[in-house]
Protein backbone atom coordinates (compact mmCIF):
# COMPACT_ATOMS: atom_id res chain seq x y z
CA UNK A 1 0.00 0.00 0.00
CA UNK A 2 1.81 2.96 1.21
CA UNK A 3 4.98 3.52 -0.20
CA UNK A 4 6.49 3.34 3.01
CA UNK A 5 9.62 1.66 1.96
CA UNK A 6 13.21 2.46 1.79
CA UNK A 7 11.71 2.62 -1.39
CA UNK A 8 9.41 5.32 -0.27
CA UNK A 9 9.52 6.71 3.07
CA UNK A 10 7.28 9.39 3.92
CA UNK A 11 5.52 7.06 2.04
CA UNK A 12 3.80 4.82 2.91
CA UNK A 13 1.18 3.11 4.31
CA UNK A 14 2.05 2.05 2.19
CA UNK A 15 2.92 3.31 3.81
CA UNK A 16 2.50 2.17 5.12
CA UNK A 17 3.53 4.90 2.53
CA UNK A 18 4.53 7.59 3.16
CA UNK A 19 4.43 11.01 3.07
CA UNK A 20 7.32 10.56 4.28
CA UNK A 21 9.92 11.02 1.85
CA UNK A 22 13.25 9.62 2.15
CA UNK A 23 13.44 7.56 -0.91
CA UNK A 24 16.24 5.99 -2.79
CA UNK A 25 17.04 9.26 -4.38
CA UNK A 26 18.29 10.74 -1.21
CA UNK A 27 21.59 9.10 -0.38
CA UNK A 28 21.78 7.88 3.14
CA UNK A 29 24.98 9.71 3.81
CA UNK A 30 22.84 12.85 3.96
CA UNK A 31 21.17 11.40 6.99
CA UNK A 32 24.47 10.57 8.59
CA UNK A 33 25.78 14.02 7.82
CA UNK A 34 22.67 15.40 9.43
CA UNK A 35 23.18 13.19 12.45
CA UNK A 36 26.69 14.47 12.87
CA UNK A 37 25.32 17.96 12.76
CA UNK A 38 22.72 17.00 15.31
CA UNK A 39 25.51 15.75 17.54
CA UNK A 40 27.18 19.13 17.24
CA UNK A 41 23.93 20.87 17.97
CA UNK A 42 23.33 18.73 20.99
CA UNK A 43 26.71 19.69 22.35
CA UNK A 44 26.00 23.33 21.77
CA UNK A 45 22.61 23.10 23.37
CA UNK A 46 24.02 21.36 26.40
CA UNK A 47 26.63 24.02 26.83
CA UNK A 48 24.05 26.79 26.83
CA UNK A 49 21.51 25.74 29.40
CA UNK A 50 20.13 29.25 29.61
CA UNK A 51 18.05 28.73 26.50
CA UNK A 52 14.79 30.60 26.68
CA UNK A 53 11.53 29.28 25.21
CA UNK A 54 11.63 31.57 22.17
CA UNK A 55 15.15 30.39 21.47
CA UNK A 56 13.99 26.79 21.69
CA UNK A 57 11.26 27.55 19.16
CA UNK A 58 13.64 29.09 16.70
CA UNK A 59 16.18 26.30 17.04
CA UNK A 60 13.44 23.77 16.43
CA UNK A 61 12.87 25.34 13.04
CA UNK A 62 16.58 25.59 12.42
CA UNK A 63 17.07 21.96 13.24
CA UNK A 64 14.28 20.91 10.93
CA UNK A 65 15.77 23.06 8.19
CA UNK A 66 19.13 21.43 8.82
CA UNK A 67 17.57 18.03 8.29
CA UNK A 68 16.61 19.03 4.78
CA UNK A 69 19.50 21.37 4.18
CA UNK A 70 21.01 19.20 1.48
CA UNK A 71 17.79 19.34 -0.52
CA UNK A 72 17.38 23.08 -0.37
CA UNK A 73 18.59 23.64 -3.92
CA UNK A 74 16.72 22.36 -6.98
CA UNK A 75 18.05 19.07 -8.34
CA UNK A 76 20.89 19.47 -10.83
CA UNK A 77 20.27 18.26 -14.36
CA UNK A 78 23.09 15.71 -14.15
CA UNK A 79 21.15 13.83 -11.47
CA UNK A 80 17.92 13.40 -13.40
CA UNK A 81 16.61 9.88 -13.83
CA UNK A 82 14.92 8.04 -16.69
CA UNK A 83 11.80 5.91 -17.08
CA UNK A 84 13.33 2.66 -15.84
CA UNK A 85 14.19 4.13 -12.48
CA UNK A 86 10.66 5.27 -11.81
CA UNK A 87 9.04 2.13 -13.16
CA UNK A 88 11.25 -0.02 -10.94
CA UNK A 89 10.69 2.17 -7.93
CA UNK A 90 6.91 2.30 -8.18
CA UNK A 91 6.67 -1.39 -9.03
CA UNK A 92 8.54 -2.38 -5.91
CA UNK A 93 7.30 0.33 -3.61
CA UNK A 94 3.61 -0.31 -3.48
CA UNK A 95 3.61 -3.86 -2.20
CA UNK A 96 3.71 -3.84 1.57
CA UNK A 97 2.38 -5.85 4.45
CA UNK A 98 -0.75 -3.76 4.54
CA UNK A 99 -1.80 -5.11 1.12
CA UNK A 100 -2.70 -8.30 2.98
CA UNK A 101 -5.00 -6.23 5.17
CA UNK A 102 -6.73 -3.89 2.74
CA UNK A 103 -7.73 -6.56 0.20
CA UNK A 104 -9.11 -8.58 3.09
CA UNK A 105 -11.04 -5.63 4.48
CA UNK A 106 -12.83 -5.13 1.17
CA UNK A 107 -14.08 -8.71 1.37
CA UNK A 108 -15.17 -8.25 4.98
CA UNK A 109 -17.01 -5.06 4.06
CA UNK A 110 -19.06 -6.99 1.56
CA UNK A 111 -18.11 -5.40 -1.73
CA UNK A 112 -19.32 -7.02 -4.93
CA UNK A 113 -17.00 -8.37 -7.61
CA UNK A 114 -17.88 -5.54 -9.96
CA UNK A 115 -17.08 -3.05 -7.19
CA UNK A 116 -13.64 -4.49 -6.70
CA UNK A 117 -12.63 -4.93 -10.31
CA UNK A 118 -14.27 -1.74 -11.57
CA UNK A 119 -13.93 0.49 -8.50
CA UNK A 120 -10.30 -0.31 -7.84
CA UNK A 121 -9.50 0.13 -11.54
CA UNK A 122 -11.11 3.57 -11.55
CA UNK A 123 -9.63 4.60 -8.21
CA UNK A 124 -6.14 3.53 -9.20
CA UNK A 125 -6.52 5.25 -12.57
CA UNK A 126 -7.47 8.46 -10.78
CA UNK A 127 -4.42 8.06 -8.55
CA UNK A 128 -2.16 7.62 -11.57
CA UNK A 129 -3.68 10.66 -13.28
CA UNK A 130 -3.23 12.65 -10.08
CA UNK A 131 0.46 11.75 -10.04
CA UNK A 132 0.86 12.47 -13.73
CA UNK A 133 -1.09 15.71 -14.07
CA UNK A 134 -0.88 17.25 -10.62
CA UNK A 135 2.26 16.12 -8.87
CA UNK A 136 4.89 15.41 -11.54
CA UNK A 137 4.51 18.64 -13.58
CA UNK A 138 5.11 20.82 -10.53
CA UNK A 139 7.95 18.56 -9.39
CA UNK A 140 9.90 18.86 -12.65
CA UNK A 141 9.39 22.61 -12.86
CA UNK A 142 10.31 23.44 -9.26
CA UNK A 143 12.58 20.47 -8.50
CA UNK A 144 12.22 21.02 -4.76
CA UNK A 145 11.23 18.64 -1.96
CA UNK A 146 7.78 18.75 -0.36
CA UNK A 147 9.41 20.16 2.75
CA UNK A 148 10.71 23.26 1.03
CA UNK A 149 7.56 23.72 -1.01
CA UNK A 150 5.42 23.76 2.12
CA UNK A 151 7.96 25.94 3.92
CA UNK A 152 7.75 28.60 1.19
CA UNK A 153 3.95 28.59 1.19
CA UNK A 154 2.92 27.91 4.77
CA UNK A 155 5.90 29.18 6.75
CA UNK A 156 8.13 27.28 9.18
CA UNK A 157 5.66 26.86 12.04
CA UNK A 158 3.12 24.95 10.01
CA UNK A 159 5.95 23.00 8.40
CA UNK A 160 7.19 21.89 11.82
CA UNK A 161 3.65 20.90 12.73
CA UNK A 162 3.31 18.99 9.47
CA UNK A 163 6.58 17.14 10.11
CA UNK A 164 5.71 16.32 13.71
CA UNK A 165 2.26 15.02 12.92
CA UNK A 166 3.69 13.11 10.06
CA UNK A 167 6.19 11.42 12.36
CA UNK A 168 3.33 10.36 14.62
CA UNK A 169 1.37 8.86 11.75
CA UNK A 170 4.57 7.10 10.68
CA UNK A 171 4.73 5.41 14.07
CA UNK A 172 1.11 4.35 13.72
CA UNK A 173 1.70 2.92 10.26
CA UNK A 174 4.89 1.20 11.39
CA UNK A 175 2.86 -0.32 14.21
CA UNK A 176 0.38 -1.77 11.73
CA UNK A 177 3.31 -3.29 9.83
CA UNK A 178 4.63 -4.86 13.03
CA UNK A 179 1.16 -6.24 13.70
CA UNK A 180 1.17 -7.81 10.23
CA UNK A 181 4.61 -9.35 10.75
CA UNK A 182 3.64 -10.62 14.19
CA UNK A 183 0.72 -12.60 12.74
CA UNK A 184 3.31 -14.41 10.62
CA UNK A 185 5.55 -15.23 13.57
CA UNK A 186 2.82 -16.35 15.94
CA UNK A 187 1.17 -18.75 13.49
CA UNK A 188 3.96 -21.37 13.34
CA UNK A 189 4.30 -21.07 17.12
CA UNK A 190 0.64 -21.96 17.58
CA UNK A 191 -0.30 -18.64 19.18
CA UNK A 192 -3.65 -17.36 17.96
CA UNK A 193 -3.80 -13.79 16.69
CA UNK A 194 -6.54 -11.61 18.17
CA UNK A 195 -9.81 -11.67 16.25
CA UNK A 196 -11.12 -8.14 16.66
CA UNK A 197 -14.32 -8.87 14.74
CA UNK A 198 -15.10 -11.60 17.28
CA UNK A 199 -14.67 -9.20 20.17
CA UNK A 200 -11.02 -9.83 21.06
CA UNK A 201 -9.94 -6.24 21.53
CA UNK A 202 -6.77 -7.11 23.45
CA UNK A 203 -4.21 -9.70 22.31
CA UNK A 204 -3.11 -12.55 24.54
CA UNK A 205 0.02 -12.11 26.65
CA UNK A 206 2.13 -14.49 24.49
CA UNK A 207 1.04 -12.58 21.36
CA UNK A 208 2.00 -9.27 22.96
CA UNK A 209 5.39 -10.69 23.94
CA UNK A 210 6.00 -11.78 20.34
CA UNK A 211 4.90 -8.36 19.07
CA UNK A 212 7.27 -6.69 21.52
CA UNK A 213 10.05 -8.98 20.27
CA UNK A 214 9.32 -8.27 16.61
CA UNK A 215 8.96 -4.55 17.26
CA UNK A 216 12.16 -4.41 19.30
CA UNK A 217 14.07 -6.26 16.58
CA UNK A 218 12.77 -3.80 14.00
CA UNK A 219 13.65 -0.83 16.19
CA UNK A 220 17.15 -2.13 16.91
CA UNK A 221 17.78 -2.91 13.25
CA UNK A 222 16.53 0.54 12.30
CA UNK A 223 19.25 1.94 14.53
CA UNK A 224 22.04 -0.41 13.50
CA UNK A 225 21.75 -1.27 9.88
CA UNK A 226 19.73 1.10 7.78
CA UNK A 227 21.75 0.83 4.56
CA UNK A 228 22.10 -2.94 4.56
CA UNK A 229 18.40 -3.33 5.29
CA UNK A 230 17.59 -0.91 2.49
CA UNK A 231 19.42 -3.19 0.12
CA UNK A 232 17.65 -6.26 1.47
CA UNK A 233 14.28 -4.54 1.05
CA UNK A 234 15.14 -3.98 -2.58
CA UNK A 235 15.87 -7.69 -2.97
CA UNK A 236 12.58 -8.68 -1.35
CA UNK A 237 10.43 -6.42 -3.51
CA UNK A 238 10.38 -8.30 -6.87
CA UNK A 239 9.52 -11.59 -5.20
CA UNK A 240 6.50 -10.46 -3.20
CA UNK A 241 4.02 -9.91 -6.08
CA UNK A 242 4.66 -13.49 -7.17
CA UNK A 243 3.63 -14.77 -3.76
CA UNK A 244 0.39 -12.76 -3.79
CA UNK A 245 -0.51 -13.94 -7.29
CA UNK A 246 0.55 -17.50 -6.70
CA UNK A 247 -1.35 -17.80 -3.43
CA UNK A 248 -4.55 -16.50 -5.00
CA UNK A 249 -4.37 -18.74 -8.06
CA UNK A 250 -3.66 -21.84 -5.99
CA UNK A 251 -6.53 -21.00 -3.63
CA UNK A 252 -9.18 -20.63 -6.32
CA UNK A 253 -9.91 -24.37 -6.64
CA UNK A 254 -10.82 -24.55 -2.94
CA UNK A 255 -13.61 -22.06 -3.69
CA UNK A 256 -14.83 -24.16 -6.58
CA UNK A 257 -13.31 -22.18 -9.43
CA UNK A 258 -12.42 -24.57 -12.23
CA UNK A 259 -11.67 -22.10 -15.00
CA UNK A 260 -12.34 -18.66 -16.34
CA UNK A 261 -15.84 -19.83 -17.24
CA UNK A 262 -17.11 -19.98 -13.66
CA UNK A 263 -14.70 -17.51 -12.07
CA UNK A 264 -17.08 -14.56 -12.19
CA UNK A 265 -19.97 -16.56 -10.79
CA UNK A 266 -17.88 -17.93 -7.89
CA UNK A 267 -16.35 -14.49 -7.32
CA UNK A 268 -19.83 -13.05 -6.74
CA UNK A 269 -21.10 -15.98 -4.71
CA UNK A 270 -18.12 -16.77 -2.48
CA UNK A 271 -15.54 -13.98 -2.57
CA UNK A 272 -17.02 -10.52 -3.10
CA UNK A 273 -20.57 -11.41 -2.18
CA UNK A 274 -22.11 -8.01 -1.48
CA UNK A 275 -22.87 -9.12 2.10
CA UNK A 276 -20.71 -7.52 4.80
CA UNK A 277 -19.41 -9.69 7.63
CA UNK A 278 -21.01 -9.10 11.05
CA UNK A 279 -20.00 -5.76 12.51
CA UNK A 280 -18.75 -4.31 9.21
CA UNK A 281 -20.42 -1.49 7.31
CA UNK A 282 -21.19 -2.22 3.65
CA UNK A 283 -18.84 -0.89 0.98
CA UNK A 284 -19.77 -0.41 -2.64
CA UNK A 285 -18.26 0.78 -5.90
CA UNK A 286 -17.44 4.32 -4.78
CA UNK A 287 -15.87 3.12 -1.56
CA UNK A 288 -13.45 1.06 -3.64
CA UNK A 289 -12.79 4.07 -5.88
CA UNK A 290 -12.23 6.30 -2.86
CA UNK A 291 -9.98 3.87 -1.01
CA UNK A 292 -7.75 3.29 -4.03
CA UNK A 293 -7.55 7.01 -4.72
CA UNK A 294 -7.22 8.08 -1.08
CA UNK A 295 -4.68 5.68 0.25
CA UNK A 296 -1.81 7.47 -1.47
CA UNK A 297 -3.40 10.87 -1.71
CA UNK A 298 -0.75 12.42 0.53
CA UNK A 299 1.73 11.46 -2.18
CA UNK A 300 -0.07 12.55 -5.33
CA UNK A 301 -2.67 15.25 -4.67
CA UNK A 302 -0.91 15.98 -1.40
CA UNK A 303 2.27 16.47 -3.45
CA UNK A 304 4.48 14.33 -1.23
CA UNK A 305 5.99 12.76 -4.32
CA UNK A 306 7.35 16.02 -5.67
CA UNK A 307 10.31 14.90 -3.60
CA UNK A 308 10.98 11.99 -5.93
CA UNK A 309 9.64 13.35 -9.20
CA UNK A 310 12.00 16.30 -8.92
CA UNK A 311 14.51 13.79 -10.28
CA UNK A 312 12.35 13.01 -13.35
CA UNK A 313 13.50 14.17 -16.76
CA UNK A 314 9.90 14.69 -17.91
CA UNK A 315 6.59 15.18 -16.16
CA UNK A 316 5.18 12.28 -18.18
CA UNK A 317 7.15 9.97 -15.91
CA UNK A 318 4.33 10.49 -13.45
CA UNK A 319 2.56 7.76 -15.40
CA UNK A 320 5.13 5.28 -14.04
CA UNK A 321 2.99 5.25 -10.92
CA UNK A 322 0.64 2.96 -12.87
CA UNK A 323 3.09 0.11 -12.31
CA UNK A 324 2.83 0.52 -8.57
CA UNK A 325 -0.89 1.05 -8.47
CA UNK A 326 -1.90 -1.80 -10.71
CA UNK A 327 0.53 -4.31 -9.21
CA UNK A 328 0.22 -3.33 -5.57
CA UNK A 329 -3.20 -1.78 -5.16
CA UNK A 330 -5.06 -3.72 -7.82
CA UNK A 331 -3.53 -7.14 -8.32
CA UNK A 332 -2.35 -7.54 -4.71
CA UNK A 333 -5.63 -6.34 -3.17
CA UNK A 334 -7.64 -8.65 -5.40
CA UNK A 335 -5.31 -11.54 -4.57
CA UNK A 336 -5.50 -10.94 -0.84
CA UNK A 337 -9.29 -10.78 -1.19
CA UNK A 338 -9.27 -14.19 -2.84
CA UNK A 339 -6.94 -15.52 -0.13
CA UNK A 340 -9.22 -14.16 2.59
CA UNK A 341 -12.37 -15.69 1.09
CA UNK A 342 -10.68 -19.04 0.47
CA UNK A 343 -9.36 -19.16 4.03
CA UNK A 344 -12.71 -18.25 5.58
CA UNK A 345 -14.50 -20.75 3.34
CA UNK A 346 -12.07 -23.54 4.28
CA UNK A 347 -12.33 -22.71 7.98
CA UNK A 348 -16.11 -22.76 7.90
CA UNK A 349 -16.05 -26.06 6.04
CA UNK A 350 -13.87 -27.34 8.86
CA UNK A 351 -16.42 -26.15 11.41
CA UNK A 352 -14.79 -22.98 12.69
CA UNK A 353 -17.38 -20.55 14.06
CA UNK A 354 -15.37 -17.34 13.69
CA UNK A 355 -12.52 -17.63 11.18
CA UNK A 356 -9.78 -15.07 11.69
CA UNK A 357 -8.32 -14.00 8.34
CA UNK A 358 -5.11 -12.40 9.61
CA UNK A 359 -2.32 -11.76 7.11
CA UNK A 360 -0.39 -14.71 8.55
CA UNK A 361 -3.34 -17.07 8.31
CA UNK A 362 -4.32 -16.24 4.75
CA UNK A 363 -0.73 -16.25 3.49
CA UNK A 364 -0.05 -19.62 5.08
CA UNK A 365 -3.23 -20.95 3.55
CA UNK A 366 -2.33 -19.73 0.07
CA UNK A 367 1.42 -20.11 -0.17
CA UNK A 368 2.66 -22.14 2.81
CA UNK A 369 5.85 -21.07 4.52
CA UNK A 370 6.79 -18.86 1.57
CA UNK A 371 3.61 -16.93 2.35
CA UNK A 372 4.57 -16.65 6.00
CA UNK A 373 7.99 -15.31 5.05
CA UNK A 374 6.34 -12.90 2.63
CA UNK A 375 4.10 -11.49 5.36
CA UNK A 376 6.98 -11.23 7.78
CA UNK A 377 9.24 -9.45 5.30
CA UNK A 378 6.48 -7.27 3.85
CA UNK A 379 5.79 -5.92 7.31
CA UNK A 380 9.40 -5.72 8.37
CA UNK A 381 10.92 -4.07 5.32
CA UNK A 382 8.30 -1.35 5.37
CA UNK A 383 8.14 -0.82 9.13
CA UNK A 384 11.88 -0.35 9.39
CA UNK A 385 12.40 2.75 7.26
CA UNK A 386 9.14 4.16 8.52
CA UNK A 387 10.41 3.95 12.05
CA UNK A 388 13.79 5.28 11.06
CA UNK A 389 12.27 8.40 9.56
CA UNK A 390 9.93 8.87 12.48
CA UNK A 391 12.92 8.74 14.80
CA UNK A 392 14.76 11.26 12.66
CA UNK A 393 11.81 13.64 12.74
CA UNK A 394 11.39 13.30 16.49
CA UNK A 395 15.08 13.95 17.00
CA UNK A 396 14.58 17.44 15.67
CA UNK A 397 12.44 18.15 18.71
CA UNK A 398 14.71 16.32 21.15
CA UNK A 399 18.24 17.48 20.33
CA UNK A 400 19.75 16.30 23.61
CA UNK A 401 18.70 12.72 22.99
CA UNK A 402 20.96 10.22 21.31
CA UNK A 403 19.85 8.97 17.91
CA UNK A 404 19.32 5.42 19.13
CA UNK A 405 17.30 6.60 22.11
CA UNK A 406 14.90 8.59 19.94
CA UNK A 407 14.44 5.71 17.53
CA UNK A 408 13.77 3.30 20.35
CA UNK A 409 11.29 5.76 21.88
CA UNK A 410 9.50 5.93 18.53
CA UNK A 411 9.74 2.14 18.52
CA UNK A 412 7.85 1.96 21.81
CA UNK A 413 5.02 3.95 20.28
CA UNK A 414 5.13 1.62 17.29
CA UNK A 415 4.98 -1.48 19.51
CA UNK A 416 2.06 -0.11 21.52
CA UNK A 417 0.22 0.52 18.26
CA UNK A 418 1.04 -2.99 17.06
CA UNK A 419 -0.68 -4.43 20.14
CA UNK A 420 -3.99 -2.72 19.34
CA UNK A 421 -5.96 -5.07 17.06
CA UNK A 422 -8.36 -2.24 16.19
CA UNK A 423 -5.60 -0.58 14.15
CA UNK A 424 -5.63 -3.34 11.53
CA UNK A 425 -9.40 -3.70 11.75
CA UNK A 426 -9.87 -0.02 10.91
CA UNK A 427 -6.79 0.43 8.76
CA UNK A 428 -8.83 1.59 5.77
CA UNK A 429 -10.43 4.33 7.91
CA UNK A 430 -7.07 5.34 9.34
CA UNK A 431 -5.68 5.60 5.82
CA UNK A 432 -8.63 7.76 4.80
CA UNK A 433 -8.20 10.11 7.76
CA UNK A 434 -4.51 10.39 7.13
CA UNK A 435 -5.01 11.13 3.46
CA UNK A 436 -7.66 13.77 4.04
CA UNK A 437 -5.63 15.41 6.78
CA UNK A 438 -2.37 15.82 4.86
CA UNK A 439 -3.80 16.42 1.40
CA UNK A 440 -4.71 20.15 1.76
CA UNK A 441 -1.08 21.26 1.92
CA UNK A 442 -0.52 19.67 -1.47
CA UNK A 443 -3.58 21.46 -2.77
CA UNK A 444 -2.01 24.76 -1.72
CA UNK A 445 1.16 23.96 -3.65
CA UNK A 446 -0.94 23.15 -6.72
CA UNK A 447 -2.96 26.34 -6.49
CA UNK A 448 0.03 28.48 -5.65
CA UNK A 449 1.75 27.19 -8.76
CA UNK A 450 -1.09 27.25 -11.31
CA UNK A 451 -3.74 29.67 -10.10
CA UNK A 452 -2.07 32.42 -8.10
CA UNK A 453 -0.19 34.04 -11.01
CA UNK A 454 -3.45 34.07 -13.03
CA UNK A 455 -5.28 35.76 -10.15
CA UNK A 456 -2.55 38.34 -9.80
CA UNK A 457 -1.48 36.88 -6.45
CA UNK A 458 2.13 36.45 -5.42
CA UNK A 459 3.60 32.99 -5.20
CA UNK A 460 5.55 31.89 -2.11
CA UNK A 461 4.04 34.81 -0.24
CA UNK A 462 5.01 33.53 3.23
CA UNK A 463 8.64 33.12 2.24
CA UNK A 464 8.85 36.47 0.49
CA UNK A 465 7.40 38.33 3.42
CA UNK A 466 9.46 36.33 5.87
CA UNK A 467 6.33 35.10 7.65
CA UNK A 468 6.77 32.32 10.16
CA UNK A 469 3.09 31.43 10.04
CA UNK A 470 0.69 31.62 7.11
CA UNK A 471 -2.84 32.03 8.43
CA UNK A 472 -4.46 31.37 5.01
CA UNK A 473 -2.68 28.01 4.94
CA UNK A 474 -3.75 27.24 8.51
CA UNK A 475 -7.40 28.08 7.76
CA UNK A 476 -7.33 26.11 4.51
CA UNK A 477 -5.67 23.10 6.13
CA UNK A 478 -7.69 22.75 9.30
CA UNK A 479 -10.85 24.21 7.78
CA UNK A 480 -10.90 21.65 4.99
CA UNK A 481 -10.28 18.70 7.27
CA UNK A 482 -12.59 20.01 9.97
CA UNK A 483 -15.53 20.58 7.61
CA UNK A 484 -15.14 17.19 5.96
CA UNK A 485 -14.83 15.47 9.32
CA UNK A 486 -17.94 17.14 10.73
CA UNK A 487 -19.95 16.29 7.61
CA UNK A 488 -18.91 12.68 8.06
CA UNK A 489 -19.17 12.50 11.85
CA UNK A 490 -22.65 14.05 12.10
CA UNK A 491 -24.19 10.84 10.78
CA UNK A 492 -21.66 8.42 12.29
CA UNK A 493 -21.44 9.47 15.92
CA UNK A 494 -24.47 10.12 18.10
CA UNK A 495 -22.60 12.84 19.96
CA UNK A 496 -22.28 14.81 16.72
CA UNK A 497 -25.88 14.43 15.53
CA UNK A 498 -26.78 17.89 16.87
CA UNK A 499 -24.82 19.39 13.99
CA UNK A 500 -27.60 18.43 11.59
CA UNK A 501 -30.05 20.80 13.26
CA UNK A 502 -27.80 23.77 12.49
CA UNK A 503 -27.08 22.88 8.88
CA UNK A 504 -29.09 23.93 5.84
CA UNK A 505 -31.29 21.17 4.46
CA UNK A 506 -29.06 20.08 1.62
CA UNK A 507 -26.09 19.64 3.96
CA UNK A 508 -28.01 17.78 6.65
CA UNK A 509 -29.24 15.40 3.94
CA UNK A 510 -25.69 15.02 2.65
CA UNK A 511 -24.32 11.82 4.17
CA UNK A 512 -20.84 11.31 2.75
CA UNK A 513 -18.47 8.55 3.73
CA UNK A 514 -14.82 9.37 4.35
CA UNK A 515 -13.86 7.74 1.06
CA UNK A 516 -16.19 10.00 -0.88
CA UNK A 517 -14.66 13.23 0.38
CA UNK A 518 -11.58 13.51 -1.79
CA UNK A 519 -12.93 16.14 -4.13
CA UNK A 520 -14.95 18.09 -1.55
CA UNK A 521 -11.91 18.25 0.74
CA UNK A 522 -9.66 19.41 -2.08
CA UNK A 523 -12.13 22.04 -3.25
CA UNK A 524 -12.78 23.36 0.25
CA UNK A 525 -9.04 23.57 0.87
CA UNK A 526 -8.29 25.56 -2.26
CA UNK A 527 -11.30 27.88 -1.87
CA UNK A 528 -10.44 28.70 1.74
CA UNK A 529 -6.76 29.13 0.99
CA UNK A 530 -7.30 31.24 -2.13
CA UNK A 531 -9.90 33.55 -0.56
CA UNK A 532 -7.82 34.02 2.58
CA UNK A 533 -4.69 34.64 0.49
CA UNK A 534 -6.52 37.31 -1.54
CA UNK A 535 -7.50 39.05 1.69
CA UNK A 536 -4.00 38.71 3.12
CA UNK A 537 -2.24 39.98 0.01
CA UNK A 538 -4.74 42.81 -0.39
CA UNK A 539 -4.14 43.91 3.19
CA UNK A 540 -0.36 43.49 3.07
CA UNK A 541 0.91 43.68 -0.49
CA UNK A 542 4.54 42.78 -1.05
CA UNK A 543 7.02 45.60 -1.22
CA UNK A 544 8.97 45.89 -4.44
CA UNK A 545 12.11 44.24 -3.06
CA UNK A 546 10.03 41.30 -1.77
CA UNK A 547 8.58 40.48 -5.17
CA UNK A 548 11.95 39.42 -6.57
Amino acid at each position, binding site marked *: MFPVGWRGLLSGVDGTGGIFYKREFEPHDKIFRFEREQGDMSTKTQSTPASVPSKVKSTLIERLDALYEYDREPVHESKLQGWRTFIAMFSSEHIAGTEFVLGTLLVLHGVRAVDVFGGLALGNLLAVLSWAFMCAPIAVKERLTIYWQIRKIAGPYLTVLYSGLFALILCLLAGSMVNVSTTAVTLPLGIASPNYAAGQTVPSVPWILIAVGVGTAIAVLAVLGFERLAHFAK*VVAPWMPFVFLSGAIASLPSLGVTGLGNFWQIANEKIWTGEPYPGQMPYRFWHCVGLAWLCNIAQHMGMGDVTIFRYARKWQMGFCSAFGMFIGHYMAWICSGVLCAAFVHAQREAGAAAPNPTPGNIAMFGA*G*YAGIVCVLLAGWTTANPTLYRAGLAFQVATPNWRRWAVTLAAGILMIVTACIPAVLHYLDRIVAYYGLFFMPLGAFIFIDFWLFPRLGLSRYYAERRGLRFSWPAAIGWFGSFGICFVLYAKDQYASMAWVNSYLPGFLSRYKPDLFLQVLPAWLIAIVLYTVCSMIQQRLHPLREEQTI
Partner: protein
Amino acid sequence: MKTARTRILQVISFAGLGLSIVPSFLVFGGVLSKELYFHLMTAGMLMWFSTAVFWIRKDHLG
Protein backbone atom coordinates in the same frame (compact mmCIF):
# COMPACT_ATOMS: atom_id res chain seq x y z
CA MET B 1 29.49 -5.79 -18.21
CA LYS B 2 27.97 -8.82 -16.57
CA THR B 3 30.34 -11.53 -15.44
CA ALA B 4 29.62 -15.23 -15.89
CA ARG B 5 29.07 -15.49 -12.17
CA THR B 6 26.45 -12.78 -12.26
CA ARG B 7 24.69 -14.44 -15.15
CA ILE B 8 24.55 -17.77 -13.32
CA LEU B 9 23.19 -16.08 -10.23
CA GLN B 10 20.56 -14.31 -12.28
CA VAL B 11 19.49 -17.54 -13.96
CA ILE B 12 19.02 -19.16 -10.56
CA SER B 13 17.14 -16.10 -9.28
CA PHE B 14 14.72 -16.04 -12.18
CA ALA B 15 14.26 -19.79 -11.96
CA GLY B 16 13.32 -19.15 -8.33
CA LEU B 17 10.74 -16.60 -9.40
CA GLY B 18 9.45 -19.12 -11.93
CA LEU B 19 9.09 -21.70 -9.16
CA SER B 20 7.17 -19.10 -7.20
CA ILE B 21 4.48 -18.72 -9.84
CA VAL B 22 4.27 -21.67 -12.26
CA PRO B 23 3.27 -24.33 -9.69
CA SER B 24 0.21 -22.30 -8.68
CA PHE B 25 -1.18 -22.69 -12.21
CA LEU B 26 -0.54 -26.42 -11.97
CA VAL B 27 -2.50 -26.52 -8.72
CA PHE B 28 -5.28 -24.58 -10.40
CA GLY B 29 -5.27 -27.08 -13.26
CA GLY B 30 -5.40 -29.98 -10.83
CA VAL B 31 -2.00 -31.30 -11.93
CA LEU B 32 -0.14 -30.62 -8.70
CA SER B 33 -1.05 -31.23 -5.08
CA LYS B 34 -1.11 -28.25 -2.76
CA GLU B 35 1.50 -29.87 -0.51
CA LEU B 36 4.01 -30.19 -3.31
CA TYR B 37 3.15 -26.66 -4.40
CA PHE B 38 4.05 -25.38 -0.94
CA HIS B 39 7.42 -27.13 -1.12
CA LEU B 40 8.12 -25.69 -4.55
CA MET B 41 7.20 -22.21 -3.33
CA THR B 42 9.68 -22.59 -0.49
CA ALA B 43 12.35 -23.80 -2.89
CA GLY B 44 11.69 -20.86 -5.21
CA MET B 45 11.96 -18.47 -2.29
CA LEU B 46 15.29 -19.93 -1.20
CA MET B 47 16.65 -19.80 -4.76
CA TRP B 48 15.64 -16.15 -5.11
CA PHE B 49 17.00 -14.89 -1.82
CA SER B 50 20.23 -16.89 -1.90
CA THR B 51 21.20 -15.40 -5.26
CA ALA B 52 19.41 -12.09 -5.87
CA VAL B 53 21.09 -10.46 -2.92
CA PHE B 54 24.42 -10.75 -4.77
CA TRP B 55 23.42 -9.13 -8.04
CA ILE B 56 20.70 -6.62 -7.17
CA ARG B 57 22.68 -3.48 -6.69
CA LYS B 58 22.49 -1.04 -3.88
CA ASP B 59 21.16 2.35 -4.75
CA HIS B 60 23.58 5.11 -5.42
CA LEU B 61 21.12 7.65 -6.65
CA GLY B 62 21.02 11.26 -5.81
